[in-house]
């Protein structure tokens, strides 16, 4: 049996709801934490089946048709088993949610760095040597590699107009017309993409570093021409994803086909440099933002146009304007986005695609407007909050931005701030504060989970859902414990195996809420069965402390089960709610920075984030997610930029020494406050996504603080010392 539910509105089908007193929401330790601190958690590359061979991917050194010059010579190296130059290999990682093969082929390189061969050897050292010795020649091709040189794709050009922007803009008392640019960025998860593939002659088993297993299984099967039921993917531990592991990656496909051809298990781990170029990056963007307001700072017109890029044949287009569409009211609106086709490594989802860069730039522009209009930045935002979603007129399922702004303001200690920049100095350091709103659309995904109540009174939660550091293991244990009246210690959680019911996967911040709701539904089914056995209405059943109670009938669970396990299967689907209301998550971020007047270096001294993302399922893991997002905002604002060579588009700084992920010393204590507010439109749990919200705006709190500190407005991100210095000089 399966209990299916689709979220059409705030009503439900009489499901139990968390009462707020149980284990759900509690500040609980990560249940997989002990394995992680002891080194016992095994990630993809750490599976080592007998007879395993080692594969290393080899890149195209240039664009255009590609040849392997000395494959025979390489194959003759002792220990080398084969050089694959196989048409099934993929050009780049699949886009998130694709569910089918990405572009395949090795005969021509669409971007420099495309994997075009796999060398397989008996040991890793030999495989690396062979990969180094393999000579690949590319003919070169005159293809555009710079966004300014690319042609906009007519299918990816979108305009959304409301009212009369031009007139409103020309007649406004206060206007702003600025262009921001954001560089290409990468997820740079700590675990490189890795796969260990085993083929038993019929079925492929792949240990991968992947976020969305049900899709990844379909993608891998499609790449290899296998039926989906001939593929099993396992990812019980994933060393971070941030979007880069949404789709099947080159290592997986290459390892799988090598294992099938050679009849031995094969491991392929991407080198760190490959991680930077063969998966998907965040596109660079160029954004023109035009704002018009009356004397009181009420927006009369919003214009936001964005140019992004991607490789030919990639469906993904960074939805830069996603947040702009609903954050602020203005009767006249002009939203334009376009995508140009260029030959840099493929672009795709990186943590909060759209808002991460779109909200960051827009919130910086709002700060500029606040300065122009002489209005406090918090107040400016409060004055422009819409009653309903602008354009569509849909109501919001919940709207907590005002509360985040005011609570954050108080917690940070914003009041009394001088509106003028360059007012505080400590030695050579300018001190300033800045703030930004944070918004992120909330999404729901199909998800299934199974819960088994075992005769000993414990429960087992199972799904192919992943935990990429998000806390899925822990949260699902809490959800099942809450629903079944057990302690979280009584719950076992098994995830990351496609032989289990298909969860949502980890992407778009949907994991905890969508698969978590499926877990809740599975438990609901069990509750209904128990109510049936006790001959009472499910609504009258209480489950607590290992007992089921209906009126005066109180039984120990073991008695209800009488030696047999009881299974529930939950299945969640998005429904009409997504169309009826605008559902989003909300936040406000405040930052204090110090900017050196000598060097232009910026140090973030403190940062506060207040967020509302529905019911918080675990205070501790949610806080960590929010902190992670805020630190990503810091990287976006100050340190991160993937540089592409102007001649052939290759990623120049493709390592962790030159691509600057924030280090410990960059990140001050990140104060996080979570406004717990079950959203009735989000299903029986009332939970929404929180994994991406923290990055959607926090970078601009820093950029705005830099301006407040030293008067320098950075519109080309990131605010590296040289750029700040150019403004100071």
């Amino acid at each position: 049996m399966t209990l299916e539910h689709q979220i059409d509105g705030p009503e439900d089908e009489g499901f139990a709801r968390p009462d707020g007193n149980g284990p759900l929401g509690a500040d609980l330790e990560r249940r997989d934490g002990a394995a992680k601190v002891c080194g016992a958690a095994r990630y993809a590359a750490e599976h080592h089946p007998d007879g395993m061979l080692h594969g290393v991917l080899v890149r195209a050194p240039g664009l255009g048709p590609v040849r392997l010059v000395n494959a025979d010579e390489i194959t003759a190296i002792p220990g080398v088993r084969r050089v694959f130059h196989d048409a099934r290999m993929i050009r780049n990682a699949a886009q998130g949610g694709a569910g089918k093969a990405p572009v395949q082929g090795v005969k021509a390189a669409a971007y420099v760095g495309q994997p075009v061969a796999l060398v397989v050897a008996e040991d890793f050292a030999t495989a690396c040597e062979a990969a180094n010795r393999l000579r690949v020649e590319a003919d070169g091709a005159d293809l555009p590699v710079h966004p300014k040189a690319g042609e906009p794709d007519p299918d990816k050009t979108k305009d959304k107009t409301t009212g009369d922007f031009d007139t409103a803009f020309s007649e406004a008392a206060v206007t702003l017309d600025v262009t921001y640019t954001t560089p290409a960025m990468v997820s740079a998860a700590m675990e490189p993409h890795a796969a260990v593939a085993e083929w038993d002659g019929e079925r492929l088993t792949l240990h991968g570093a992947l976020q969305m297993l049900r899709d990844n299984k379909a993608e891998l099967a499609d790449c290899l021409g296998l039926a989906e039921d001939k593929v099993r993917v396992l990812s019980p531990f994933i060393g971070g994803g941030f979007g880069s592991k949404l789709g099947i990656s080159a290592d997986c496909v290459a390892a799988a086909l090598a294992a099938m051809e050679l009849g031995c298990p094969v491991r392929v781990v991407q080198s760190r440099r490959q991680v930077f170029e063969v998966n998907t990056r965040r596109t660079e963007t160029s954004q023109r933002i035009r704002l018009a307001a009356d004397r009181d700072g009420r927006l009369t017109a919003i214009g936001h146009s964005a140019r992004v890029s991607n490789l030919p044949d990639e469906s993904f287009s960074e939805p830069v304007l996603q947040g702009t569409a609903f954050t602020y009211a203005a009767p006249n609106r002009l939203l334009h986005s376009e995508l140009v086709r260029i030959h840099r490594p493929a672009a795709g989802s990186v943590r909060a695609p759209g808002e991460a860069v779109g909200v960051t730039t827009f919130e910086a522009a709002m700060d500029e407007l606040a300065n122009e209009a002489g209005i406090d930045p918090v107040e400016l935002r409060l004055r422009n909050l819409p009653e309903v979603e602008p354009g569509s007129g849909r109501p919001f399922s919940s709207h907590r931005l005002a509360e985040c702004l005011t609570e954050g303001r108080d917690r940070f200690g914003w009041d009394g701030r001088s509106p003028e920049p360059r007012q505080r100095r400590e030695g050579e350091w300018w001190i300033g504060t800045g703030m930004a709103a944070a918004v992120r659309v909330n999404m729901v995904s199909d998800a299934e989970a199974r819960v088994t109540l075992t005769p000993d009174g414990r429960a087992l939660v199972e799904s192919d859902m992943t935990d990429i550091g998000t806390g899925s293991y822990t949260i699902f244990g809490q959800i099942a414990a809450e629903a079944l009246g057990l302690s979280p210690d009584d719950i076992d959680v098994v995830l990351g195996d496609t032989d289990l019911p298909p969860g949502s996967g980890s992407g778009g911040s949907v994991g905890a809420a969508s698969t978590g709701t499926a877990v809740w539904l599975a438990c609901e089914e069990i509750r209904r069965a128990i109510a049936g056995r006790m001959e009472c209405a499910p609504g009258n059943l209480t489950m607590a402390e290992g007992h089921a109670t209906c009126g005066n009938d109180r039984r120990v669970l073991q008695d209800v089960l009488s030696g047999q396990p009881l299974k529930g299967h939950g299945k969640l689907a998005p429904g009409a709610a997504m169309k009826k209301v605008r559902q989003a998550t909300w936040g406000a971020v405040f930052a204090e920075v110090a900017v050196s007047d000598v060097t232009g270096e910026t140090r973030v001294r403190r940062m506060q984030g207040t967020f509302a993302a529905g019911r918080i399922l675990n205070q501790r893991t949610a806080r960590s997610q929010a902190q992670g997002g805020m630190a990503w905002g810091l990287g976006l604002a100050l340190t991160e930029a993937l540089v592409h060579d102007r001649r052939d588009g290759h990623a120049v700084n493709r390592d962790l020494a030159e691509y600057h992920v924030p280090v410990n010393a960059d990140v001050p204590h990140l104060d996080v406050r979570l406004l717990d507010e079950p959203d009735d439109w989000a299903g029986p749990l009332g939970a929404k996504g929180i994994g991406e919200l923290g990055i959607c705006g926090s970078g601009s709190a820093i950029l705005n603080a830099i301006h407040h500190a030293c008067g320098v407005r950075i519109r080309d991100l990131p605010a590296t010392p040289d750029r700040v210095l150019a403004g100071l000089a």
Partner: protein
Amino acid sequence: MKTQLTVNRTRHEIEADPRVTLLDALRDHLGLTGSKKGCDHGQCGACTVIADGRRINACLSLLAQHDGSEIVTVEGLEGADGLSPLQRAFLDHDGMQCGYCTPGQLCSATAMLDEVRNGRASHVTEDLEAPVTLTRDEIMERMSGNLCRCACYSGIVAAIEEVAAE
């Protein structure tokens, strides 16, 4: 070639190609996969182990150079009575999310506290000749060789502060 070394108090003799790094030897030859490979180029710190009392990047060290060395990896941090104080504190302060950098963070923090006890200065130490006080800034600077992309730095620093205070 043969290399003899002690790992987590157990002696091993490993026959391997001279190109094998200490990290690959631990992971592939001894099956001690707690030490992670994040970049293989000394740029992330995920491979940090303690060699003869010093924290190092195992990825940039040849196994052959560790003939006779005593290595401690994350698998060797636990004491007789269970988790080390740092391991416990990382759990309490959620100093991890994906967990991939965690073993390196723990080995690094363990050895870093010894460095502080031995009076070693850091880039942010104000007076090179005065005793070192382990402030928050000191912890942040000293732990900057261990990247955490999940950015659990707040939790990591809190965990270390707690243990250092004991």
